């Protein structure tokens, strides 16, 4: 694996210092990975995640946080080493299938998912005559088991979303939304003020708060699920959600009042907006955020405008 970025001096010296120790710890030798080979891997990983301006001690801390045994195993498998592959199968075959089952919730879909990933891990596809295994991209930042689950989930989401998106894109084409010229935004200054105050209130939140909001309200996840995603206790999320629900409304009204709107009008604007938005929120929540992968933000906005007038009529 060649690095496309330049390897900073800090990375080079940190790797030189730790390669031997980490290589020994990783047991890479028995998978046919030499110390030099392992050092190269470490360089690649460090360069991938660390800023070029990082100090040597930062690089050292980073390198020591890697799961080197699993990294060596994964790279060994990617190289086609038999003993590595044997160990991998013993340890992860069952878990992979069980994880697929949990994700796909249905036996045949789970098998398909798991088998599909196996093929990619094994390296069925080749590039320029060299077998390409997905395991070569494992960098040891998280556990291999967790990584396998994540990759499965990504595959599942891609397949499912792709199908769903295709449907919705087709719908949009029928409705002429794809090719219509961009309409001017609704002229209501109230709306714009409300939106900007809302944006302001949202921007003031921490990313964790916004994530909790999105996961709980947009995705409809349970408190327990959100807590697990963040690695905290459910009561923490429960408290956070309560706090956010209370404070957001206050902040938006306060923001609007600062802009000269009186309290009653501000509160009404919040309410009015709710009713109007009910239809298109439900619809846009039903589809996953279109702006994320396929459409650009402005297209998403255009869609919203398209939907809103239609809802009102």
């Amino acid at each position, binding site marked *: 694996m060649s690095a496309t970025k330049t390897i900073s001096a800090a990375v080079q010296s940190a790797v030189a210092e730790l390669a031997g120790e980490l290589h020994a710890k990783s047991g890479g030798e028995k998978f046919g990975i030499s110390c030099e080979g392992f050092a190269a891997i470490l360089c690649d990983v460090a360069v991938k995640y660390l800023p070029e301006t990082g100090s040597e001690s930062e690089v050292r801390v980073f390198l020591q946080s890697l799961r080197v045994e699993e990294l060596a195993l994964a790279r060994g498998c990617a190289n086609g080493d038999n003993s590595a592959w044997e160990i991998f199968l013993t340890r992860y075959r069952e878990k992979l299938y069980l994880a697929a089952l949990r994700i796909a919730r249905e036996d045949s879909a789970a098998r398909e998912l798991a088998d599909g990933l196996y093929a990619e891990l094994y390296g069925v596809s080749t590039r320029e005559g060299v077998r390409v295994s997905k395991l070569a991209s494992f*960098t040891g930042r998280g556990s291999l088991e967790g990584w396998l689950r994540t990759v499965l989930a990504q595959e599942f989401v891609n397949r499912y979303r792709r199908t769903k998106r295709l449907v919705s894109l087709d719908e949009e084409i029928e409705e002429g939304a794809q090719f219509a010229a961009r309409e001017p935004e609704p002229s209501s200054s109230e709306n714009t003020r409300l939106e900007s105050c809302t944006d302001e209130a949202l921007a003031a939140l921490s990313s964790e708060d916004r994530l909790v909001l999105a996961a709980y309200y947009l*995705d409809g996840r349970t408190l327990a699920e959100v807590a697990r995603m963040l690695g905290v206790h459910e009561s923490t999320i429960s408290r956070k959600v309560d706090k956010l629900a209370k404070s957001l409304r206050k902040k938006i009204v306060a923001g609007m009042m600062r802009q000269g709107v009186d309290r009653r009008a501000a509160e009404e604007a919040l309410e009015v907006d709710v009713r109007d938005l009910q239809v298109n929120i*439900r619809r846009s929540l039903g589809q996953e955020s279109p702006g994320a992968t396929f459409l650009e933000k402005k297209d998403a906005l255009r869609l919203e405008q398209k939907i809103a007038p239609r809802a009102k009529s």
Partner: protein
Amino acid sequence: MRDVPKIVLKRLQETAGEEAHPDADLLTAFAEQSLGESERTRVMDHLARCGDCREVVALALPANEAVAEAASSRASRGGWFGWPVLRWGVAIAGIIAIASFGIVQYRQRQKSEFLSSNVSARNEPAANAVQALPASPAPSDTLDIILPAENKKQPEKKQQAELKGEFHSSSSANFSMVQPARPLKRAAPAAGAARGAAKGGIAGGNFAMGSGFRAGVAAKAAPPSASNAPATQGELKNATPEETAKLVEPSLARGQAGGVPSSAQTVEVAPQTAGVPATTESQVADQVIESQKEQPSQYQSSATLGVVEAKDAATMSKLELATPRWSISAEGGLQRSFDRGKTWVEVNPGEVGSKAGSSHTFAMRKKAAVQGSPHTVFRAVSAAGAEVWAGGSAAMLYHSTDSGLHWARIVPVESGTVLTGDITSVEFSDPQHGRIATSAGEVWITADDGKTWRRQ
């Protein structure tokens, strides 16, 4: 009231932009709490905007137990929640329990006009603790403590009810002791169990063992309980005979009914000092001993003392095994495991008290899934200790308070409107408050453990 203005959700969604998604390694490291602060913030920033990546993170989470245990082990590892602090916390709570027990005895003795005012003065400071600790388990529970093999279900149910009642009026000291290792959704049972452990190794350990999973001592409480046990064992070993008797007696002397076996007298014989010593402790012991004669039980304490120390280790592993885990199978079956997830057995709430073989219900379920017959396909389960809620197709909602032995069908209804659709999620943040979502887009909540419901 947890609603946010819809405009908020709208704007939140619209902030999504086209940007690179974190790779699988980053998402995994995020989920495993292995990222540094700045990287974590960046990933969360993206996740707040990207529903797909949120979905990936959620799907890739490991099974419930692993995560919850990691969370609770993190909690119990360092700082405030370290073992030494926990042990001392237990010791202090134990002493408070003993003192409060003494107060209870004192008050009872007052009624029988037995005490001098000296004792009352000395016991005053402990009065506060007494307020916090209400009636203890009934004697029949004590019987269960000694004879775990008998494992009566009725007393266990009572115990659970009592535990719940106890929890609600428990002192903050006890509550905070339990807090650190409190796993998700298990406040009540864990608090009750930890208090039980604090009252005395015997009462706590055997109590939990005798009632097993019924008392809802979660496996997650095992780490703190495990630390409780050695601490209490230490207490037992180091304590004077008097103190030992006191540790034992809380469960004994609180018994209101029961026969007067001569064996109970053996307790008093060992630690008893004939005279009336000046210390509070002795007086408490005396009170205890005296009241023993009034309200004895069949407790074989001397034998049990030795037994407790040996049993505590076994108790702990039994505790870990005892609490059932719940899951939904791929076919939509409700499954329960009593061995930490090694083996699973289908549970069918529709058949009262049924322990139908898994193959039987599996076949029925397959049939239901294919033919759409009324046999329920479960989609969500929420459990805390012995309380279980399970929901599935056709608005089927079942509730059990005894880990799935008996079920009640619950129909959420509000002014004539009934919940419709398949139940897709069930969550109970505490025993009283629950939230159900259905495939018809409905959200129903309860604040009284499912007696009444309100549609959100």
